[in-house]
């Protein structure tokens, strides 16, 4: 099934379901929006590899659409945030 004439809201949900079930990603926490012939995917993933896999899955599903990769890869060595509980 292509992505050409499908209402964008349904397509965005179909992409989200694919990202959840595809064994390369299994990502449920990403934001997906589709507008003006473009798929925007955002959120945080744990590695650069995972980020590339997400884009690959979206591209396979929607080869005719532009993909905007707004994913953030988590900081590997940021100092821990600390809070005192009294």
């Amino acid at each position, binding site marked *: 099934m292509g992505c050409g004439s499908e209402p964008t809201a349904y397509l965005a949900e179909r992409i989200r379901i694919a990202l959840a079930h595809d064994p390369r990603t299994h990502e*449920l*926490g990403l934001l997906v929006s589709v507008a003006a012939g473009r798929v925007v995917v955002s959120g*945080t993933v744990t590695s650069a*590899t995972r980020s590339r896999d997400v884009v690959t899955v979206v591209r396979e599903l929607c080869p005719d659409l532009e993909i905007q990769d707004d994913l953030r890869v*988590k900081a590997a060595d940021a100092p821990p*945030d600390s809070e005192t509980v*009294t």
Partner: protein
Amino acid sequence: MIRVAAVGDLHVDAEGAEVLGPRLARLADDADVLLLAGDLTRCGGRREADALAAELARVPVPVVAVLGNHDHHAGEPREVGARLAAVGVRVLEGEQLLLDVRGSRVGIVGTIGFGGGFEGACGSDFGEPEMKAFIGHTQRLAARLEQRLAATEADVRIVLLHYAPVPETLFGERLEIYPFLGSYLFAEAVDRIGADLVVHGHAHAGSERGMTRGGVRVRNVALPLINRPYRVFSFTGRELHVDGALEIAP
């Protein structure tokens, strides 16, 4: 002072991305115990659990974990738990653990939790069997949490969840999906007994800080949200006990 590191939603794959990264070796400088708030693996596969276990085996402080929904997806959550337990991780589900940290008793009560929603906008155990099963599952886990928390005598009591107990730590997520992200029943259980801190994950786009209606701090430590290897909570002014024992109750 007792220092507790916490993070959730590691989503480790079979290739074993180093989730704690270079911080792992320094963890003992930061904290006395590491809490993992579920979604430890990408989909609960055995190879994923093995990859995570290999990394956690090198953590120099006690590691206490609950599983998350991702850890259940492959249908083998017990396998995931067993592989982590094999390297010394204490995996809790409706259980409590008492740790002796330099003479202070740190009680940790853990459950994955579940959904259902929050006060004024939640599901009821009414109607179809599927709906009764959904809410009934949440009710049973919350009742178990309350029971185990009541049985935990400690200087510091921490509740470890995967799903959220309050809506405040979900701010940023779409309101429509709140019932799938947590349930107020867990906050209610905590407030009946009392605790010093509740940590959870699951809501990657949520907010870090919230509070139960009874005033207990709630912190969302989902890794994609905190964007650092873990958060550290320091507990000060706690009475010291010298006879704390390490034990786990069923």
